[in-house]
């Protein structure tokens, strides 16, 4: 029997960036908040011996325990979906702070074009340009979101400089850009000589000592090179457990419970009344009644919880109707590797978001009239620090093992550089998420099923941008560059990126979207579903700057709703 607990104003499901920000903002307003996080409590104090590549970088100590829960995957609807038994393609977060603990901190704002992608593309290139793509406007413009972006950047202490082709800013970055290194300088010089406009990547690693609007003090980044996949022992990384959660607790209004895995949003068909959760250690079950339910459990579980709780209309891939599970997108990642026989770089030094970027081939910053794809991507060099197990970059013709592999992987550890792209990913009718018919999690609930493959749009974008990254790399003067591979089928095994999007998308109409531009569910006005799950497509940047902006927008909506009620948009 589940134990019913005293009612609270708001219950938050999952405490990463989205949940942490909303907890802080609601607590500040005097609302009583219960934050339920399935993983453990953790913070800077827990990263005393964190420079351990095997434990954190390869065995993924800070990420989701798949023995309890995973997703199933297939490339297309006629295949049998099978469980993602091991982490690979993306690394789901678990524990206080979510993925915000072990992210890199590349913190961009999506382009104005992203928010109005359908109307702008059709206006400029005609309806035929978007044939087969299930794109839609987001129901909010960049200008409307601008102040929320800034709120997040202040909370996260983002350091950077404005790119000429990026979105216009009302305020300068809260912190200066990261240091220039021979690697970032080399990229910029090459990009400039090709007529592009490089700038220092906006960073969530503190370029200087910083104090945010919540009084959180963050130390300057030490460029320690154990950043992505690791927690920061200095508290120098923008991390929810440093930036927002301590303040949330200090308000005295926020009660965060760890090891609390939410299994159901309880509702009466119109409104939610609370959530059910299991203590994953003692296995006790609880019901937490609440006036408002805020779902911030990342793309996968935002979608799955709504489906298993039967809230909102499930997406139907045959007809393209329904909304929960719709428009799952990922990221397209063309890039180039260059090998410098005569030079050695300090590749083992770095910081998660130390890098340089160009926007010349992002969004609609270049003419697509004669191209067979829309959108593009931001192209960057990222000096996050090579570590020896993960980084074995070798020229294409090198065998995978044996003496030659050894020789090249040793030689090029400090002599290879790579350029990468965060390429936009467009939704299509047959890429989606629903519930798996056979596989279950540790609590007996169906796993989320992902049906996803790359499309012609993706392949065309990949090939086109790949030639650009080759050109920049060649201009950097390597002895050789690697042959570019073809983008074939999406593969769940090799790590690509944890930039999954969609499933509970936002928009202006309830027929085509699940939440409005306050991230409030059309079908249940006291439920707010926040995260990259709200992206109707994925843009040409890392997502979290935009997730943060949407979290601040949602927090404003939730506070408004707590006073006025009703649909906010």
């Amino acid at each position, binding site marked *: 029997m589940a134990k019913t607990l005293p009612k609270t104003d708001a219950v938050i499901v999952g405490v990463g960036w989205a949940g942490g920000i909303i907890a802080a903002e609601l607590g500040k307003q005097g609302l009583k908040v219960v934050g339920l996080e399935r993983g453990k409590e953790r913070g800077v104090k827990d990263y*005393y*011996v964190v*420079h*351990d*590549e*095997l434990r954190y970088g*390869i*065995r*993924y100590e800070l990420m989701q*325990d*798949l*023995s309890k*829960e*995973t997703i199933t*995957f*297939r*490339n297309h609807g006629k*295949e*049998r979906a*099978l*469980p993602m*038994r*091991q982490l*690979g393609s993306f690394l789901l977060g678990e524990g206080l702070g979510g993925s915000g603990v072990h992210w890199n901190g590349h913190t961009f704002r999506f382009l104005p074009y992203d928010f109005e992608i359908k109307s702008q593309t059709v206006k400029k290139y005609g309806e035929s340009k978007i044939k087969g793509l299930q794109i839609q406007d987001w129901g909010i413009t960049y200008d409307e979101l601008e102040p929320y972006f800034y709120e997040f950047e202040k909370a996260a202490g983002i350091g950077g400089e404005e790119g000429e082709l990026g979105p216009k800013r009302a305020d300068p970055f809260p912190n200066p850009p990261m240091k220039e*290194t*021979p690697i970032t300088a080399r990229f910029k010089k090459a990009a400039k000589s090709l007529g592009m406009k490089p700038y220092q990547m906006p960073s969530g690693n503190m370029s200087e000592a910083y104090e945010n609007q919540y009084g959180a003090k963050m130390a300057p980044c*030490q*460029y*320690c*090179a*154990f950043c992505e996949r690791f927690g920061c022992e200095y508290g120098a990384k923008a991390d929810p457990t440093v930036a927002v959660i301590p303040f949330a607790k200090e308000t005295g209004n926020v009660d965060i419970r760890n090891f609390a895995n939410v299994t159901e949003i309880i509702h009466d068909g119109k409104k939610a009344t609370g959530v059910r959760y299991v203590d994953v250690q003692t296995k006790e079950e609880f019901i937490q009644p609440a006036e408002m339910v805020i779902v911030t459990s990342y793309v996968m579980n935002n979608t799955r919880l709504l489906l298993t709780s039967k809230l909102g209309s499930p997406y139907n891939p045959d007809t393209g109707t329904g909304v929960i599970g719709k428009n799952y997108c990922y990221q397209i990642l063309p890039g180039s590797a260059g090998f410098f026989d005569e030079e*050695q*770089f*300090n590749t*083992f*030094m*770095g910081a998660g978001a*130390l890098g340089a970027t160009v926007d010349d081939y992002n969004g609609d910053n270049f003419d697509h009239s004669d191209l067979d794809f829309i959108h593009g991507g931001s192209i960057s060099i990222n000096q996050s620090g*090579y*570590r*020896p*197990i993960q980084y074995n970059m070798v020229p294409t013709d090198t065998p*995978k*093992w*044996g*003496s030659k592999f*050894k*020789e090249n*992987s*040793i030689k090029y*550890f*400090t002599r290879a550089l790579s350029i990468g792209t965060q390429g936009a990913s467009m939704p299509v009718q047959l890429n989606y998420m629903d519930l798996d018919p*056979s*596989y*279950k999690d540790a609590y007996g609930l169906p796993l989320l099923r992902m049906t996803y493959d790359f499309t012609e749009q993706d392949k065309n974008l990949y090939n086109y941008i790949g030639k650009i990254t080759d050109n920049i790399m060649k201009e950097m003067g390597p002895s050789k560059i690697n042959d570019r591979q073809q983008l074939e*089928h*999406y*593969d*769940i*095994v090799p790590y690509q990126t944890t930039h999954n999007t969609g499933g509970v998308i936002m928009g202006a109409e309830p027929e085509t979207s699940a939440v409005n531009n306050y991230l409030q569910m059309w079908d249940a006005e006291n439920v707010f579903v926040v995260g990259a799950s709200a992206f109707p497509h994925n843009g040409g940047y890392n997502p979290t700057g935009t997730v943060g902006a949407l979290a601040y927008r949602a927090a404003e909506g939730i506070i408004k709703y707590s006073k006025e009620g009703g649909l906010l948009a």
Partner: protein
Amino acid sequence: MSEHEQKQESTMSRRRFIRNSGLVAGGLVGGGILGGLIGANMNKDGTATEENTHTNGHDQVAYQQSPLYFTNPETFGILQAAVERIYPKDENGPGANDLDVPFFIDHQLAGSWGNNTREYMQGPFFPGSNFQGYQSPLKRHEVFDVGLAALQTYSNEKFKKPFAELEGEQQDEILTAFEEDQVKLRGVTSRTFFNILRAATIEGVYADPAYAGNKNMEGWKMKDFPGHQMSYINQIESEKFVKIKPNSLHSYTK
């Protein structure tokens, strides 16, 4: 060589080892146990390697050089031979065995990774497409049991000799057949086994020495990787390549 002769030879070398090591205590020799634990570090001629004398150059006992998973010297010998082909000793520096990679793998198999404790292992199991990842019902330690045994069987069939006694090129030929999925195993594909073996070998070369491989940080030194350093803030802008003496996790507790 007949199977009977092979058996004799391996017992022979074990006996030689026991004699050489002076470890034979009355009544203890029986079965394969003694050779199993310490014979792991044996050279072909039966003499103990330097590490085998229980020092790591600092008059300290290298307690980590003890198997926690493997119980059978023949199996451990196959592993030793295989990892050395994947990461051989050559003019670039030590190979997998000098770096204690077999002990690294052994310890990993005995723990959480070898038992897939943080992975989804519920059925039903189906082979899956090339894009759906690991779908074997076997845990990694079982994959190694099956895979190493199959290396031996395949070797005996093809070259009429145990895997560890083959020439390097012959061992490569066999490993390649496994890599290319030409060998049928029970419960797992030979390619999956090979890929795990390869990945684990590289991990053993470069993981922190706390895990028993990357002996004396020699793996890191080959790559000019300085291991754990607290900060590069004063060097990050340097135009010159900076050589830094490596540090391991051990330095946290020193």
